[in-house]
C-alpha cells in the first residue's frame, strides 16, 4: 500500500520504475531485518541456544567428560525423590491455579458488583500482592509462618486453634507454599476476569432478564460463555508460570522438610548449582518441558484463532 502510493507519481519508464520499486522493497526489508536483528540475536544466543544446550548437557556424566545417553534420566527414574518431585510439582501447580482462578473469579464479581466510582480504589488495593516482588512478600510470609513467633498462630490461638507447624510438617508445608502462591497470583486473575466482565455487553443481561433468566442462568448462559476465552488463556499462562515457579518454595521451605515441598525448579537448583552436578540438574529441569509445551500449544492455538478473527 505504502509503496504503491509512493510510486504512483513517478511516471518514468516501465523498467526504471520496476527496478526502483524493487530497490525500495529491498531497502525496506533490509531496514526491517536490521531492526529485528538485536531481538533475533538475543533470542537465539540467550534463549534457544541454552535450551538446546541443556539437552546436550543432560546426556553427559557428572564431570561432563563422558557421553552417557539417557543415563541421567534412567538414574532419575530409579530415585524415589524424583517421583515425589513430579507428584509435588503437579499438585502444587494444579491446586494453585484452580484456587487462583476461583478466588480471582469471585473477587472480580464482587468488584464488578459495587458502584463504579468505588471500583478503582478496591481494584488498586486488591492488586498489591501482585505488585510486591515475590521474594519480598515471601519473606513476610516466612515471618508470619515463623515456628516460635508466628503471628498467624497468635491469631488462631484467639479461637483456640493451633499452633500450626506451617513450614515444619510435610502436609502443612505443602499447604503453606500453595497458599502463598495463591495469595500472589489470585489478584492477577481478578484483574483479567474483571476486564473480561466489563467487556460483556449490558444488553445481553437485559435480554436475559426479560426472558426471565435467574442469577444462575445468567451466569451460565451469558457470563461464562463470554468470558471463556480469557479464562482459559489466563489459566494456561498461570499454569506455565506456576509450574516453573522457583522463588516461593526456595524462600519458604528450600524444599524441606526432607524434600517434601521440592518442585522441579528448586530441585534442579539444589542438584545442579548447589550440588554441582550440572548434567543431572539439567535433566531435572527438562522434565518441565512436556507440560509447558502442552500449555503453549493451547495458548498459541487461541492466539492464532483470534488473529484469524481479527483480519
Amino acid at each position: 500500500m505504502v509503496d504503491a502510493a509512493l510510486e504512483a507519481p513517478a511516471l518514468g519508464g516501465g523498467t526504471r520504475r520496476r527496478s526502483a520499486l524493487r530497490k525500495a522493497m529491498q531497502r525496506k526489508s533490509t531496514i526491517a531485518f536490521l531492526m529485528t536483528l538485536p531481538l533475533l540475536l538475543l533470542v537465539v544466543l540467550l534463549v534457544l541456544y541454552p535450551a538446546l544446550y541443556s539437552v546436550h548437557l543432560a546426556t553427559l556424566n557428572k564431570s561432563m567428560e563422558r557421553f552417557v545417553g539417557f543415563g541421567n534420566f534412567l538414574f532419575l527414574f530409579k530415585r524415589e525423590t524424583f517421583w515425589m518431585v513430579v507428584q509435588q510439582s503437579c499438585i502444587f501447580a494444579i491446586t494453585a491455579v484452580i484456587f487462583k482462578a476461583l478466588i480471582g473469579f469471585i473477587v472480580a464479581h464482587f468488584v464488578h458488583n459495587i458502584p463504579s466510582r468505588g471500583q478503582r480504589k478496591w481494584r488498586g488495593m486488591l492488586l498489591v500482592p501482585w505488585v510486591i516482588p515475590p521474594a519480598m512478600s515471601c519473606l513476610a510470609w516466612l515471618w508470619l509462618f515463623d515456628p516460635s513467633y508466628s503471628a498467624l498462630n497468635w491469631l488462631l490461638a484467639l479461637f483456640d486453634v493451633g499452633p500450626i507447624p506451617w513450614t515444619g510438617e510435610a502436609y502443612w508445608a505443602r499447604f503453606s507454599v500453595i497458599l502463598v502462591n495463591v495469595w500472589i497470583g489470585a489478584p492477577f486473575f481478578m484483574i483479567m476476569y474483571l476486564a473480561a466482565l466489563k467487556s460483556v455487553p449490558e444488553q445481553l443481561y437485559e435480554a436475559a432478564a426479560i426472558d426471565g433468566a435467574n442469577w444462575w442462568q445468567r451466569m451460565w448462559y451469558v457470563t461464562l460463555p463470554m468470558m471463556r476465552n480469557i479464562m482459559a488463556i489466563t489459566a494456561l499462562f498461570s499454569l506455565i508460570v506456576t509450574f516453573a515457579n522457583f522463588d516461593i518454595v526456595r524462600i519458604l521451605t528450600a524444599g524441606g522438610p526432607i524434600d517434601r515441598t521440592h518442585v522441579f525448579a528448586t530441585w534442579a537448583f539444589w542438584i545442579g548449582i548447589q550440588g554441582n552436578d550440572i548434567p543431572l540438574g539439567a535433566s531435572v529441569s527438562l522434565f518441565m518441558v512436556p507440560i509447558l509445551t502442552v500449555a503453549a500449544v493451547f495458548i498459541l492455538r487461541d492466539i492464532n484463532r483470534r488473529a484469524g478473527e481479527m483480519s
Partner: protein
Amino acid sequence: MTAASITTRATSPGVRKYGSMSRDRRWALRWSYFFLTLFAIFFLMPPVYMLITSLKTSAEISAATNPWWVQNPTLSNYAELLTSRMYLTFFLNSALVSVIVVTITMLISVPAAFALSRMRFWGSATLATGVFLTYLIPETLLFIPLFKMFALVNEHLGIQLINRWWVLLLLYPTLTVPFCTWIMIGYFASIPKELDEAAIIDGASWFQTLTRIFIPVALPGLIAATIFAFTVSWAQFLYPLVFTTSTDQLVLPVGIITTLIKGDVFNWGQIMTGALLGAAPPLIIYAFLMDYYIAGLTAGATKG
C-alpha cells in the same frame, strides 16, 4: 433512584416487586462490600505485617506480646539499614541493573515491534509468533545451561562473567524483551495505516515514521512496557541467586536473603524493613501509574 422513590409509596403488587428487587440489590451490595473487605484483609495482611514489624525493636519482637501491635514504635531499623554500606550497595545495584535493562529492552523491542507489525518481510509473521513463544520459556529451564555457558566463556575467552553484577544486563532482557515486543506489536498494529502512509508520502523515512508518529501515538503502550520491564528486573530472584555471590555484586532480593539471614539468627525487624524498602519502588510506580500498569498486565493476553 427511581426504584427507591417508588418503594416509598409502594401500593400496587407490581410496584412492590420493584421494591423487593431494589432490596435484593442493596443486600447484594452489602455482601459484596463484606466479602471484599475480607479479601482485602487477606491480601494486605503480609505487607501490613511487614510495616508493623519494621517499626519494632528486636527486644519487642522477641517479647511474647501481641504481634499485631507496636508498643514503642521506632525508626531505628530504617536508620540502620539506610546507613549500612552493604544495603545501599544492594539498592544501588538493583537500581542500576533495572534502569539499564529497561533502556536495553526498549532499544531492542520497540524497533523490532515496529518492523514486525508494519514492515512485512519474509518470515515476519513466524518471527512474531516465535517471540511470543520465547516469552513462554521460563527462566528455570535456562539457568543451568546458561551457568555452564558462562563458565565456558570464562575458560576459553578469559572473560569473567560469573559473579559480576553486569552479567544480569545480559540475562534480564531475555525475560523482558519478548513480552515487551509482543505488547508493542499489539499497540502498533492498532494504529491506523493511513497515518504512516501519510508520513511516508510527506517524505518521512522509516526511522522518522517510528520516532515522530508511532512512538508518540503508542506512548501509553510504551509506558506500560517500561513499567513491566522495570518490575520484572527489580523482582528477579533466580538469576542473581545463581550468577552472583559476593556481597558487593548482589542485587536487593538476593542481598536481603543471603546477608540479613545469618544462620539461625533472624533479625526480623531489619529483614522486614529491608523487604519493605525493596518493595517500595514497584509499589510507588504502581500507585502513580496504576492504569498503565494494569493496561500492560491485561494487554499480554487480550491483544494480539
